[in-house]
Protein backbone atom coordinates (compact mmCIF):
# COMPACT_ATOMS: atom_id res chain seq x y z
CA UNK A 1 0.00 0.00 0.00
CA UNK A 2 2.41 2.63 -0.97
CA UNK A 3 1.15 6.09 -1.56
CA UNK A 4 3.21 8.17 -3.88
CA UNK A 5 1.92 11.67 -3.48
CA UNK A 6 0.37 14.24 -1.20
CA UNK A 7 -2.79 13.86 -3.24
CA UNK A 8 -3.05 10.14 -2.64
CA UNK A 9 -2.43 10.51 1.06
CA UNK A 10 -5.06 13.21 1.23
CA UNK A 11 -7.51 11.03 -0.69
CA UNK A 12 -6.97 8.03 1.52
CA UNK A 13 -7.06 10.19 4.62
CA UNK A 14 -10.36 11.65 3.48
CA UNK A 15 -11.78 8.17 2.94
CA UNK A 16 -10.62 7.00 6.36
CA UNK A 17 -11.93 10.17 7.96
CA UNK A 18 -15.27 9.57 6.27
CA UNK A 19 -15.42 5.93 7.32
CA UNK A 20 -14.62 6.82 10.93
CA UNK A 21 -16.84 9.86 10.78
CA UNK A 22 -19.82 7.62 10.10
CA UNK A 23 -19.55 6.43 13.71
CA UNK A 24 -20.10 9.91 14.98
CA UNK A 25 -22.62 11.17 12.46
CA UNK A 26 -25.36 9.35 14.40
CA UNK A 27 -27.29 9.11 11.19
CA UNK A 28 -28.85 5.81 10.19
CA UNK A 29 -28.91 6.98 6.58
CA UNK A 30 -25.17 7.50 6.42
CA UNK A 31 -24.44 4.27 8.17
CA UNK A 32 -26.87 2.25 6.10
CA UNK A 33 -25.63 3.79 2.94
CA UNK A 34 -22.01 3.15 3.85
CA UNK A 35 -22.77 -0.44 4.81
CA UNK A 36 -24.16 -1.01 1.32
CA UNK A 37 -21.13 0.68 -0.19
CA UNK A 38 -18.75 -1.51 1.80
CA UNK A 39 -20.34 -4.70 0.51
CA UNK A 40 -20.05 -3.38 -3.00
CA UNK A 41 -16.44 -2.48 -2.23
CA UNK A 42 -15.74 -6.14 -1.51
CA UNK A 43 -17.02 -7.24 -4.93
CA UNK A 44 -15.11 -4.33 -6.43
CA UNK A 45 -11.96 -5.57 -4.74
CA UNK A 46 -12.77 -8.99 -6.13
CA UNK A 47 -13.00 -7.63 -9.68
CA UNK A 48 -9.80 -5.69 -9.09
CA UNK A 49 -7.78 -8.88 -8.71
CA UNK A 50 -8.54 -10.10 -12.21
CA UNK A 51 -9.60 -6.89 -13.91
CA UNK A 52 -7.09 -4.60 -12.27
CA UNK A 53 -3.95 -6.65 -11.71
CA UNK A 54 -4.58 -9.30 -14.34
CA UNK A 55 -6.01 -7.08 -17.07
CA UNK A 56 -8.87 -9.55 -17.50
CA UNK A 57 -11.98 -7.41 -17.58
CA UNK A 58 -14.87 -9.55 -16.51
CA UNK A 59 -18.40 -8.52 -17.14
CA UNK A 60 -19.90 -11.26 -15.06
CA UNK A 61 -18.56 -11.04 -11.55
CA UNK A 62 -22.11 -11.65 -10.43
CA UNK A 63 -21.38 -15.30 -11.23
CA UNK A 64 -19.06 -15.55 -8.25
CA UNK A 65 -21.05 -13.23 -6.02
CA UNK A 66 -24.25 -15.13 -6.62
CA UNK A 67 -22.64 -18.52 -6.27
CA UNK A 68 -21.22 -17.55 -2.88
CA UNK A 69 -24.58 -16.25 -1.72
CA UNK A 70 -26.55 -19.22 -3.06
CA UNK A 71 -24.12 -21.81 -1.71
CA UNK A 72 -24.38 -20.38 1.77
CA UNK A 73 -28.14 -19.91 1.55
CA UNK A 74 -28.78 -23.43 0.29
CA UNK A 75 -26.65 -24.96 3.04
CA UNK A 76 -28.51 -22.95 5.65
CA UNK A 77 -32.04 -23.22 4.30
CA UNK A 78 -32.08 -26.68 2.77
CA UNK A 79 -29.54 -28.47 4.94
CA UNK A 80 -29.95 -26.54 8.15
CA UNK A 81 -26.25 -25.90 8.54
CA UNK A 82 -24.89 -23.13 10.68
CA UNK A 83 -24.39 -19.74 9.09
CA UNK A 84 -20.68 -19.76 9.83
CA UNK A 85 -20.26 -22.97 7.87
CA UNK A 86 -22.32 -21.40 5.10
CA UNK A 87 -20.07 -18.37 5.27
CA UNK A 88 -16.96 -20.46 4.65
CA UNK A 89 -18.69 -22.58 2.04
CA UNK A 90 -19.86 -19.49 0.19
CA UNK A 91 -16.32 -18.21 -0.10
CA UNK A 92 -15.13 -21.60 -1.32
CA UNK A 93 -17.99 -21.89 -3.79
CA UNK A 94 -17.17 -18.45 -5.17
CA UNK A 95 -13.55 -19.49 -5.58
CA UNK A 96 -14.57 -22.72 -7.29
CA UNK A 97 -16.87 -20.89 -9.68
CA UNK A 98 -14.13 -18.40 -10.49
CA UNK A 99 -11.63 -21.15 -11.14
CA UNK A 100 -14.14 -23.04 -13.26
CA UNK A 101 -14.96 -20.08 -15.48
CA UNK A 102 -11.30 -19.19 -15.72
CA UNK A 103 -10.23 -22.73 -16.53
CA UNK A 104 -12.72 -22.93 -19.37
CA UNK A 105 -12.22 -19.45 -20.75
CA UNK A 106 -8.45 -19.38 -20.62
CA UNK A 107 -8.14 -22.89 -21.98
CA UNK A 108 -9.26 -21.40 -25.26
CA UNK A 109 -7.20 -18.27 -24.86
CA UNK A 110 -10.14 -15.91 -24.52
CA UNK A 111 -9.34 -12.33 -23.69
CA UNK A 112 -10.56 -8.81 -24.20
CA UNK A 113 -14.17 -8.47 -25.17
CA UNK A 114 -14.53 -12.21 -25.69
CA UNK A 115 -13.63 -12.83 -22.08
CA UNK A 116 -16.03 -10.11 -21.01
CA UNK A 117 -18.82 -11.73 -23.02
CA UNK A 118 -18.16 -15.23 -21.75
CA UNK A 119 -18.25 -14.11 -18.14
CA UNK A 120 -21.42 -12.20 -18.88
CA UNK A 121 -22.94 -15.33 -20.39
CA UNK A 122 -21.93 -17.43 -17.41
CA UNK A 123 -23.61 -15.04 -15.01
CA UNK A 124 -26.72 -15.15 -17.18
CA UNK A 125 -26.81 -18.93 -17.32
CA UNK A 126 -26.42 -19.08 -13.57
CA UNK A 127 -29.18 -16.52 -13.14
CA UNK A 128 -31.53 -18.54 -15.28
CA UNK A 129 -30.59 -21.77 -13.56
CA UNK A 130 -31.09 -20.23 -10.13
CA UNK A 131 -34.56 -19.09 -11.10
CA UNK A 132 -35.44 -22.44 -12.62
CA UNK A 133 -34.45 -25.06 -10.08
CA UNK A 134 -36.28 -26.09 -6.97
CA UNK A 135 -33.24 -26.29 -4.68
CA UNK A 136 -32.31 -22.69 -5.37
CA UNK A 137 -35.81 -21.64 -4.44
CA UNK A 138 -36.74 -20.99 -8.05
CA UNK A 139 -38.04 -17.53 -8.71
CA UNK A 140 -39.03 -17.10 -5.06
CA UNK A 141 -35.41 -17.00 -4.03
CA UNK A 142 -34.18 -18.12 -0.64
CA UNK A 143 -34.97 -16.54 2.66
CA UNK A 144 -32.91 -17.18 5.79
CA UNK A 145 -34.84 -17.58 8.99
CA UNK A 146 -34.66 -14.42 11.00
CA UNK A 147 -32.73 -15.38 14.12
CA UNK A 148 -30.46 -12.62 15.32
CA UNK A 149 -27.34 -13.70 17.11
CA UNK A 150 -23.66 -13.92 16.45
CA UNK A 151 -24.00 -17.71 16.20
CA UNK A 152 -26.20 -17.23 13.16
CA UNK A 153 -24.15 -14.37 11.80
CA UNK A 154 -27.19 -12.14 12.03
CA UNK A 155 -26.31 -8.97 13.81
CA UNK A 156 -28.96 -6.47 14.76
CA UNK A 157 -26.71 -3.70 15.98
CA UNK A 158 -25.78 -1.64 12.99
CA UNK A 159 -22.66 -0.23 14.53
CA UNK A 160 -21.42 -3.76 15.03
CA UNK A 161 -22.33 -4.67 11.44
CA UNK A 162 -20.54 -1.59 10.22
CA UNK A 163 -17.44 -2.34 12.27
CA UNK A 164 -17.40 -5.94 11.09
CA UNK A 165 -17.66 -4.82 7.48
CA UNK A 166 -14.87 -2.30 7.96
CA UNK A 167 -12.71 -5.11 9.29
CA UNK A 168 -13.63 -7.37 6.37
CA UNK A 169 -12.88 -4.68 3.82
CA UNK A 170 -9.60 -3.88 5.54
CA UNK A 171 -8.72 -7.56 5.53
CA UNK A 172 -9.52 -7.93 1.83
CA UNK A 173 -7.47 -4.84 1.10
CA UNK A 174 -4.61 -6.20 3.16
CA UNK A 175 -4.80 -9.44 1.21
CA UNK A 176 -4.86 -7.42 -2.00
CA UNK A 177 -1.74 -5.59 -0.90
CA UNK A 178 -0.15 -8.87 0.05
CA UNK A 179 -0.96 -10.26 -3.39
CA UNK A 180 0.25 -7.13 -5.12
CA UNK A 181 3.63 -7.34 -3.43
CA UNK A 182 4.08 -11.06 -3.77
CA UNK A 183 5.39 -13.41 -6.41
CA UNK A 184 1.86 -14.13 -7.50
CA UNK A 185 1.02 -10.45 -7.84
CA UNK A 186 4.14 -9.71 -9.83
CA UNK A 187 3.32 -12.63 -12.11
CA UNK A 188 -0.24 -11.42 -12.55
CA UNK A 189 0.92 -7.95 -13.50
CA UNK A 190 3.46 -9.49 -15.86
CA UNK A 191 0.65 -11.46 -17.50
CA UNK A 192 -1.39 -8.27 -17.85
CA UNK A 193 1.42 -6.26 -19.35
CA UNK A 194 2.87 -8.82 -21.74
CA UNK A 195 1.78 -12.39 -21.71
CA UNK A 196 4.49 -13.63 -24.06
CA UNK A 197 7.27 -12.03 -22.07
CA UNK A 198 5.76 -13.52 -18.94
CA UNK A 199 5.73 -16.99 -20.47
CA UNK A 200 9.34 -16.56 -21.51
CA UNK A 201 10.24 -15.79 -17.91
CA UNK A 202 8.95 -19.15 -16.80
CA UNK A 203 5.46 -18.12 -15.79
CA UNK A 204 2.69 -20.64 -16.37
CA UNK A 205 0.31 -17.94 -17.46
CA UNK A 206 -2.69 -20.25 -17.66
CA UNK A 207 -2.23 -21.34 -14.08
CA UNK A 208 -1.72 -17.78 -12.88
CA UNK A 209 -4.87 -16.60 -14.60
CA UNK A 210 -6.97 -19.44 -13.23
CA UNK A 211 -5.56 -18.85 -9.76
CA UNK A 212 -6.39 -15.18 -10.07
CA UNK A 213 -9.95 -16.08 -11.00
CA UNK A 214 -10.13 -18.37 -7.97
CA UNK A 215 -8.91 -15.68 -5.59
CA UNK A 216 -11.18 -13.14 -7.19
CA UNK A 217 -13.99 -15.68 -6.92
CA UNK A 218 -13.30 -16.14 -3.22
CA UNK A 219 -13.61 -12.39 -2.63
CA UNK A 220 -16.70 -12.31 -4.81
CA UNK A 221 -18.23 -15.20 -2.88
CA UNK A 222 -17.40 -13.38 0.33
CA UNK A 223 -19.26 -10.30 -0.90
CA UNK A 224 -22.25 -12.45 -1.80
CA UNK A 225 -22.30 -14.10 1.59
CA UNK A 226 -22.06 -10.73 3.32
CA UNK A 227 -25.06 -9.55 1.33
CA UNK A 228 -26.99 -12.66 2.27
CA UNK A 229 -26.24 -12.39 5.96
CA UNK A 230 -27.16 -8.73 5.99
CA UNK A 231 -30.46 -8.92 4.13
CA UNK A 232 -31.25 -12.60 4.70
CA UNK A 233 -32.86 -12.86 1.30
CA UNK A 234 -31.56 -13.51 -2.17
CA UNK A 235 -33.09 -14.27 -5.50
CA UNK A 236 -31.60 -14.81 -8.90
CA UNK A 237 -31.82 -11.22 -10.11
CA UNK A 238 -30.58 -9.75 -6.87
CA UNK A 239 -27.33 -11.71 -6.79
CA UNK A 240 -26.79 -12.90 -10.37
CA UNK A 241 -28.18 -9.81 -12.10
CA UNK A 242 -25.98 -7.73 -14.35
CA UNK A 243 -26.29 -4.82 -11.92
CA UNK A 244 -23.90 -6.69 -9.62
CA UNK A 245 -21.38 -7.20 -12.41
CA UNK A 246 -21.56 -3.55 -13.34
CA UNK A 247 -21.05 -2.40 -9.76
CA UNK A 248 -18.09 -4.75 -9.49
CA UNK A 249 -16.18 -3.16 -12.33
CA UNK A 250 -17.28 0.42 -12.19
CA UNK A 251 -15.79 1.17 -8.77
CA UNK A 252 -12.27 -0.04 -9.51
CA UNK A 253 -12.20 1.66 -12.89
CA UNK A 254 -13.24 4.98 -11.42
CA UNK A 255 -11.10 4.56 -8.34
CA UNK A 256 -8.05 3.16 -10.07
CA UNK A 257 -7.82 -0.42 -11.28
CA UNK A 258 -4.87 -2.45 -10.10
CA UNK A 259 -4.37 -0.41 -6.95
CA UNK A 260 -5.12 -1.41 -3.39
CA UNK A 261 -7.18 1.65 -2.52
CA UNK A 262 -8.82 2.27 -5.90
CA UNK A 263 -11.78 -0.09 -5.60
CA UNK A 264 -12.79 1.21 -2.18
CA UNK A 265 -12.28 4.85 -3.12
CA UNK A 266 -14.12 4.41 -6.40
CA UNK A 267 -17.02 2.60 -4.81
CA UNK A 268 -17.36 5.12 -2.01
CA UNK A 269 -17.05 7.98 -4.47
CA UNK A 270 -19.69 6.55 -6.79
CA UNK A 271 -22.08 5.81 -3.95
CA UNK A 272 -21.65 9.31 -2.61
CA UNK A 273 -22.26 10.59 -6.09
CA UNK A 274 -25.41 8.48 -6.39
CA UNK A 275 -26.61 9.68 -3.00
CA UNK A 276 -25.82 13.26 -3.90
CA UNK A 277 -27.68 12.89 -7.18
CA UNK A 278 -30.67 11.53 -5.30
CA UNK A 279 -30.69 14.56 -3.02
CA UNK A 280 -30.22 17.00 -5.85
CA UNK A 281 -33.16 15.50 -7.71
CA UNK A 282 -35.33 14.24 -4.87
CA UNK A 283 -38.66 14.21 -6.65
CA UNK A 284 -37.54 12.75 -9.93
CA UNK A 285 -36.71 9.10 -9.45
CA UNK A 286 -34.57 8.00 -12.36
CA UNK A 287 -33.11 11.41 -13.10
CA UNK A 288 -30.55 10.82 -10.36
CA UNK A 289 -29.27 7.91 -12.44
CA UNK A 290 -29.01 10.22 -15.43
CA UNK A 291 -26.86 12.64 -13.48
CA UNK A 292 -24.81 9.74 -12.18
CA UNK A 293 -24.21 8.44 -15.69
CA UNK A 294 -23.14 11.84 -16.96
CA UNK A 295 -20.60 12.21 -14.16
CA UNK A 296 -19.43 8.68 -14.91
CA UNK A 297 -18.75 9.52 -18.54
CA UNK A 298 -16.83 12.62 -17.53
CA UNK A 299 -14.83 10.61 -15.03
CA UNK A 300 -13.91 8.12 -17.74
CA UNK A 301 -12.76 10.91 -19.97
CA UNK A 302 -10.87 12.98 -17.48
CA UNK A 303 -9.59 10.42 -14.98
CA UNK A 304 -7.76 7.88 -17.12
CA UNK A 305 -6.09 6.29 -14.11
CA UNK A 306 -9.01 6.76 -11.79
CA UNK A 307 -9.12 8.75 -8.59
CA UNK A 308 -5.88 7.25 -7.33
CA UNK A 309 -4.15 8.21 -10.57
CA UNK A 310 -5.53 11.75 -10.38
CA UNK A 311 -4.44 12.13 -6.79
CA UNK A 312 -1.05 10.73 -7.73
CA UNK A 313 -0.45 13.79 -9.84
CA UNK A 314 -1.02 16.11 -6.93
CA UNK A 315 2.29 16.75 -5.18
CA UNK A 316 4.17 13.58 -6.05
CA UNK A 317 6.96 12.52 -3.73
CA UNK A 318 10.50 12.16 -4.90
CA UNK A 319 11.41 8.54 -5.31
CA UNK A 320 13.52 7.20 -2.53
CA UNK A 321 15.08 3.83 -2.32
CA UNK A 322 13.43 1.29 -0.07
CA UNK A 323 10.05 2.87 0.05
CA UNK A 324 8.12 -0.35 0.08
CA UNK A 325 5.72 0.39 2.84
Amino acid sequence: MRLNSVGQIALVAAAIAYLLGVYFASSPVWMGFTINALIVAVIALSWNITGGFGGLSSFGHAAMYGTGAYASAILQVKFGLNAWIGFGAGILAGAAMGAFIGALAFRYGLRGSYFALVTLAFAEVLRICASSFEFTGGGSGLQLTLAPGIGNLQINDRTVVYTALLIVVAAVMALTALIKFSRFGAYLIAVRENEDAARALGIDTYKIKVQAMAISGAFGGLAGVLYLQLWLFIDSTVVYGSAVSVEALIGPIIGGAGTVWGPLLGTLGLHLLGEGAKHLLPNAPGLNFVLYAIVLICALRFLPQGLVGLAGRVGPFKKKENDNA
Partner: protein
Amino acid sequence: MSSLILPAVLSGLMMGAVYALVALGLTLIYGVLHIINFAHGSLLMLALYAVYFLHYHLGVDPYLAIPIVLPVFFALGYALQRGLIAPMSSGSEQNVLLITLAISMIVDNLALYFWTSNTRTADIAYAYDTVEILGAYLPLGRVIAFVAALAVAPLLWAFMAYTRTGSAIRAVAIEKRGAELVGIDVNHTYAICFGIGTACVALAACLLLPTFYVTPQVGYTFVLVAFTTVVLGGMGSLVGALIAGLLLGVIESLCGLFLGESLGQIGIFLAFILILLFKPSGLLGRAR
Protein backbone atom coordinates in the same frame (compact mmCIF):
# COMPACT_ATOMS: atom_id res chain seq x y z
CA MET B 1 -46.16 -32.98 -28.11
CA SER B 2 -44.79 -34.18 -31.41
CA SER B 3 -47.58 -32.45 -33.31
CA LEU B 4 -46.31 -29.22 -31.82
CA ILE B 5 -42.80 -29.53 -33.22
CA LEU B 6 -43.54 -28.07 -36.61
CA PRO B 7 -45.49 -25.07 -35.30
CA ALA B 8 -42.80 -24.60 -32.67
CA VAL B 9 -40.07 -24.56 -35.29
CA LEU B 10 -42.06 -22.09 -37.35
CA SER B 11 -42.79 -19.76 -34.48
CA GLY B 12 -39.14 -20.10 -33.47
CA LEU B 13 -38.14 -18.95 -36.92
CA MET B 14 -40.47 -15.98 -36.67
CA MET B 15 -39.06 -14.94 -33.29
CA GLY B 16 -35.57 -15.67 -34.53
CA ALA B 17 -36.05 -13.18 -37.34
CA VAL B 18 -36.62 -10.50 -34.74
CA TYR B 19 -33.45 -11.52 -32.92
CA ALA B 20 -31.61 -11.36 -36.20
CA LEU B 21 -32.94 -7.87 -36.93
CA VAL B 22 -31.83 -6.59 -33.55
CA ALA B 23 -28.51 -8.38 -33.91
CA LEU B 24 -27.76 -7.01 -37.37
CA GLY B 25 -27.00 -3.56 -36.03
CA LEU B 26 -25.07 -4.95 -33.13
CA THR B 27 -22.93 -7.25 -35.25
CA LEU B 28 -22.07 -4.37 -37.53
CA ILE B 29 -20.93 -2.22 -34.63
CA TYR B 30 -19.23 -5.11 -32.89
CA GLY B 31 -17.50 -6.31 -36.00
CA VAL B 32 -16.25 -2.95 -37.19
CA LEU B 33 -15.63 -0.93 -34.06
CA HIS B 34 -14.79 -3.98 -31.94
CA ILE B 35 -16.84 -2.58 -29.13
CA ILE B 36 -19.58 -4.04 -27.03
CA ASN B 37 -22.46 -1.64 -27.37
CA PHE B 38 -24.45 -1.97 -24.20
CA ALA B 39 -26.70 0.88 -25.26
CA HIS B 40 -28.11 -1.25 -28.07
CA GLY B 41 -31.11 -2.40 -26.06
CA SER B 42 -31.86 1.11 -24.90
CA LEU B 43 -31.73 2.37 -28.46
CA LEU B 44 -34.20 -0.34 -29.41
CA MET B 45 -36.46 0.85 -26.62
CA LEU B 46 -36.11 4.43 -27.78
CA ALA B 47 -36.99 3.41 -31.32
CA LEU B 48 -40.01 1.45 -30.12
CA TYR B 49 -41.25 4.56 -28.33
CA ALA B 50 -40.64 6.63 -31.44
CA VAL B 51 -42.71 4.22 -33.52
CA TYR B 52 -45.35 4.01 -30.82
CA PHE B 53 -45.74 7.77 -30.52
CA LEU B 54 -45.82 8.24 -34.27
CA HIS B 55 -48.70 5.83 -34.31
CA TYR B 56 -50.41 7.14 -31.21
CA HIS B 57 -50.23 10.84 -31.91
CA LEU B 58 -50.08 11.03 -35.68
CA GLY B 59 -51.64 7.75 -36.65
CA VAL B 60 -48.61 6.66 -38.63
CA ASP B 61 -48.66 2.95 -39.24
CA PRO B 62 -45.55 1.28 -37.76
CA TYR B 63 -44.53 -0.02 -41.17
CA LEU B 64 -44.96 3.38 -42.75
CA ALA B 65 -42.86 4.86 -39.96
CA ILE B 66 -39.79 3.15 -41.39
CA PRO B 67 -38.80 6.01 -43.73
CA ILE B 68 -39.19 8.49 -40.87
CA VAL B 69 -37.55 6.59 -38.06
CA LEU B 70 -34.62 5.12 -39.94
CA PRO B 71 -32.89 8.37 -40.98
CA VAL B 72 -33.49 9.89 -37.54
CA PHE B 73 -31.87 6.94 -35.82
CA PHE B 74 -29.05 6.84 -38.29
CA ALA B 75 -28.30 10.45 -37.39
CA LEU B 76 -28.65 9.66 -33.70
CA GLY B 77 -26.21 6.78 -33.95
CA TYR B 78 -23.77 8.84 -35.96
CA ALA B 79 -23.91 11.65 -33.44
CA LEU B 80 -23.54 9.32 -30.47
CA GLN B 81 -20.37 7.76 -31.84
CA ARG B 82 -18.85 10.92 -33.23
CA GLY B 83 -19.89 13.27 -30.50
CA LEU B 84 -19.84 11.14 -27.38
CA ILE B 85 -18.37 7.67 -27.53
CA ALA B 86 -15.26 8.42 -29.56
CA PRO B 87 -14.20 11.64 -27.86
CA MET B 88 -15.02 10.46 -24.34
CA SER B 89 -13.49 7.00 -24.49
CA SER B 90 -9.89 8.06 -25.24
CA GLY B 91 -9.61 4.94 -27.36
CA SER B 92 -9.93 2.45 -24.52
CA GLU B 93 -12.13 -0.57 -25.14
CA GLN B 94 -13.09 -0.72 -21.49
CA ASN B 95 -14.15 2.91 -21.53
CA VAL B 96 -16.31 2.40 -24.59
CA LEU B 97 -18.11 -0.37 -22.80
CA LEU B 98 -18.73 1.81 -19.77
CA ILE B 99 -19.78 4.78 -21.86
CA THR B 100 -22.36 2.73 -23.73
CA LEU B 101 -23.50 1.50 -20.35
CA ALA B 102 -23.83 5.07 -19.13
CA ILE B 103 -25.73 5.98 -22.28
CA SER B 104 -28.16 3.17 -21.66
CA MET B 105 -28.57 4.37 -18.08
CA ILE B 106 -29.35 7.87 -19.32
CA VAL B 107 -31.74 6.77 -22.06
CA ASP B 108 -33.57 4.27 -19.85
CA ASN B 109 -34.09 6.66 -17.00
CA LEU B 110 -35.09 9.57 -19.18
CA ALA B 111 -37.64 7.28 -20.80
CA LEU B 112 -38.88 6.28 -17.37
CA TYR B 113 -39.12 9.90 -16.32
CA PHE B 114 -40.86 11.25 -19.38
CA TRP B 115 -42.94 8.31 -20.50
CA THR B 116 -43.42 6.51 -17.17
CA SER B 117 -43.16 2.79 -16.78
CA ASN B 118 -46.57 2.08 -18.29
CA THR B 119 -46.70 -0.78 -20.70
CA ARG B 120 -47.91 0.46 -24.05
CA THR B 121 -49.16 -1.52 -26.95
CA ALA B 122 -50.04 -0.05 -30.28
CA ASP B 123 -53.70 -0.45 -31.07
CA ILE B 124 -53.42 -1.71 -34.61
CA ALA B 125 -56.21 -3.25 -36.59
CA TYR B 126 -54.17 -6.20 -37.79
CA ALA B 127 -52.49 -6.95 -34.44
CA TYR B 128 -54.41 -10.20 -34.10
CA ASP B 129 -54.27 -11.30 -37.72
CA THR B 130 -52.55 -14.55 -38.49
CA VAL B 131 -51.24 -16.32 -41.52
CA GLU B 132 -51.75 -20.05 -41.85
CA ILE B 133 -48.64 -21.88 -42.97
CA LEU B 134 -48.41 -25.67 -42.94
CA GLY B 135 -51.33 -25.81 -40.58
CA ALA B 136 -49.76 -23.44 -38.09
CA TYR B 137 -51.17 -20.01 -37.33
CA LEU B 138 -48.42 -17.43 -37.44
CA PRO B 139 -48.98 -13.84 -36.34
CA LEU B 140 -49.03 -11.58 -39.38
CA GLY B 141 -46.62 -9.10 -37.80
CA ARG B 142 -44.09 -11.82 -37.15
CA VAL B 143 -44.34 -13.11 -40.69
CA ILE B 144 -43.72 -9.62 -42.00
CA ALA B 145 -40.72 -9.29 -39.68
CA PHE B 146 -39.44 -12.64 -40.89
CA VAL B 147 -39.70 -11.65 -44.53
CA ALA B 148 -38.13 -8.29 -43.77
CA ALA B 149 -35.20 -9.91 -41.99
CA LEU B 150 -34.66 -12.22 -44.90
CA ALA B 151 -34.63 -9.22 -47.18
CA VAL B 152 -32.68 -6.78 -45.05
CA ALA B 153 -29.71 -8.97 -44.20
CA PRO B 154 -28.82 -9.57 -47.86
CA LEU B 155 -29.52 -5.91 -48.66
CA LEU B 156 -27.17 -4.81 -45.96
CA TRP B 157 -24.68 -7.38 -47.10
CA ALA B 158 -24.94 -6.04 -50.66
CA PHE B 159 -24.46 -2.53 -49.35
CA MET B 160 -21.30 -3.64 -47.60
CA ALA B 161 -20.08 -5.58 -50.61
CA TYR B 162 -20.85 -3.26 -53.48
CA THR B 163 -20.77 0.32 -52.30
CA ARG B 164 -17.83 2.58 -51.70
CA THR B 165 -18.93 3.24 -48.10
CA GLY B 166 -19.50 -0.45 -47.57
CA SER B 167 -16.03 -1.45 -48.62
CA ALA B 168 -14.59 1.42 -46.60
CA ILE B 169 -16.38 0.04 -43.55
CA ARG B 170 -15.03 -3.43 -44.18
CA ALA B 171 -11.57 -2.04 -44.75
CA VAL B 172 -11.62 -0.10 -41.49
CA ALA B 173 -12.91 -3.15 -39.64
CA ILE B 174 -10.01 -5.38 -40.55
CA GLU B 175 -7.09 -3.05 -41.19
CA LYS B 176 -7.43 0.37 -39.68
CA ARG B 177 -3.94 1.53 -40.57
CA GLY B 178 -4.35 0.36 -44.15
CA ALA B 179 -7.62 2.25 -44.36
CA GLU B 180 -5.96 5.41 -43.17
CA LEU B 181 -3.25 4.85 -45.76
CA VAL B 182 -5.71 4.95 -48.61
CA GLY B 183 -7.26 8.08 -47.19
CA ILE B 184 -10.37 6.75 -45.46
CA ASP B 185 -11.60 8.95 -42.61
CA VAL B 186 -11.68 6.30 -39.94
CA ASN B 187 -13.67 8.26 -37.35
CA HIS B 188 -16.29 9.19 -39.91
CA THR B 189 -16.52 5.59 -41.06
CA TYR B 190 -16.90 4.39 -37.49
CA ALA B 191 -19.69 6.87 -36.95
CA ILE B 192 -21.43 5.85 -40.16
CA CYS B 193 -21.22 2.29 -39.03
CA PHE B 194 -22.70 3.15 -35.65
CA GLY B 195 -25.39 5.08 -37.46
CA ILE B 196 -26.28 2.14 -39.67
CA GLY B 197 -26.29 -0.13 -36.66
CA THR B 198 -28.68 2.19 -34.89
CA ALA B 199 -30.85 2.46 -37.99
CA CYS B 200 -31.05 -1.35 -38.02
CA VAL B 201 -32.36 -1.27 -34.49
CA ALA B 202 -34.92 1.31 -35.53
CA LEU B 203 -36.03 -0.96 -38.33
CA ALA B 204 -36.33 -3.82 -35.88
CA ALA B 205 -38.49 -1.55 -33.72
CA CYS B 206 -40.83 -0.76 -36.61
CA LEU B 207 -41.26 -4.45 -37.32
CA LEU B 208 -41.52 -5.45 -33.68
CA LEU B 209 -44.03 -2.95 -32.35
CA PRO B 210 -47.15 -4.42 -34.01
CA THR B 211 -46.63 -7.70 -32.16
CA PHE B 212 -45.02 -6.48 -28.99
CA TYR B 213 -45.26 -3.90 -26.24
CA VAL B 214 -43.00 -1.10 -25.12
CA THR B 215 -41.80 -0.16 -21.64
CA PRO B 216 -38.61 1.58 -20.56
CA GLN B 217 -37.16 -1.85 -19.78
CA VAL B 218 -38.09 -3.55 -23.01
CA GLY B 219 -34.55 -3.33 -24.43
CA TYR B 220 -33.20 -5.84 -21.95
CA THR B 221 -35.70 -8.33 -23.27
CA PHE B 222 -33.73 -8.52 -26.48
CA VAL B 223 -30.24 -7.30 -25.90
CA LEU B 224 -28.68 -10.38 -24.32
CA VAL B 225 -30.13 -12.60 -27.01
CA ALA B 226 -28.79 -10.18 -29.57
CA PHE B 227 -25.27 -10.51 -28.15
CA THR B 228 -25.59 -14.24 -28.36
CA THR B 229 -26.71 -13.97 -31.94
CA VAL B 230 -23.76 -11.79 -32.82
CA VAL B 231 -21.19 -14.15 -31.35
CA LEU B 232 -22.90 -17.23 -32.71
CA GLY B 233 -23.07 -15.78 -36.20
CA GLY B 234 -19.48 -14.62 -36.12
CA MET B 235 -18.52 -11.11 -35.18
CA GLY B 236 -19.32 -8.73 -37.97
CA SER B 237 -20.96 -11.31 -40.20
CA LEU B 238 -24.34 -10.04 -41.35
CA VAL B 239 -25.46 -13.25 -42.98
CA GLY B 240 -24.11 -15.08 -39.94
CA ALA B 241 -26.29 -12.94 -37.69
CA LEU B 242 -29.33 -13.78 -39.78
CA ILE B 243 -28.66 -17.51 -39.64
CA ALA B 244 -27.74 -17.41 -35.98
CA GLY B 245 -30.82 -15.40 -35.11
CA LEU B 246 -33.10 -17.88 -36.84
CA LEU B 247 -31.21 -20.78 -35.29
CA LEU B 248 -31.48 -19.32 -31.80
CA GLY B 249 -35.17 -18.70 -32.29
CA VAL B 250 -35.64 -22.35 -33.12
CA ILE B 251 -33.36 -23.55 -30.31
CA GLU B 252 -35.25 -21.42 -27.85
CA SER B 253 -38.61 -22.54 -29.12
CA LEU B 254 -37.77 -26.25 -29.09
CA CYS B 255 -35.94 -26.12 -25.74
CA GLY B 256 -38.91 -24.22 -24.38
CA LEU B 257 -41.25 -26.87 -25.66
CA PHE B 258 -39.34 -29.80 -24.25
CA LEU B 259 -37.56 -28.41 -21.19
CA GLY B 260 -40.10 -25.82 -20.17
CA GLU B 261 -39.99 -22.16 -21.05
CA SER B 262 -37.88 -21.15 -18.05
CA LEU B 263 -35.17 -23.69 -18.56
CA GLY B 264 -35.47 -23.35 -22.32
CA GLN B 265 -33.69 -20.02 -22.12
CA ILE B 266 -30.63 -21.87 -20.97
CA GLY B 267 -30.40 -23.43 -24.41
CA ILE B 268 -29.51 -20.03 -25.83
CA PHE B 269 -26.82 -19.30 -23.32
CA LEU B 270 -25.33 -22.74 -23.46
CA ALA B 271 -25.09 -22.34 -27.21
CA PHE B 272 -23.45 -19.00 -26.55
CA ILE B 273 -20.84 -20.36 -24.17
CA LEU B 274 -20.13 -23.43 -26.27
CA ILE B 275 -19.59 -21.38 -29.39
CA LEU B 276 -17.35 -18.92 -27.55
CA LEU B 277 -15.31 -21.70 -26.09
CA PHE B 278 -14.95 -23.99 -29.04
CA LYS B 279 -15.34 -21.80 -32.07
CA PRO B 280 -14.88 -18.23 -30.96
CA SER B 281 -15.03 -17.11 -34.55
CA GLY B 282 -18.70 -18.12 -34.76
CA LEU B 283 -20.58 -19.83 -37.52
CA LEU B 284 -19.49 -17.57 -40.35
CA GLY B 285 -16.80 -15.51 -38.73
CA ARG B 286 -13.18 -15.52 -39.68
CA ALA B 287 -10.59 -16.80 -37.27
CA ARG B 288 -8.96 -13.86 -35.63
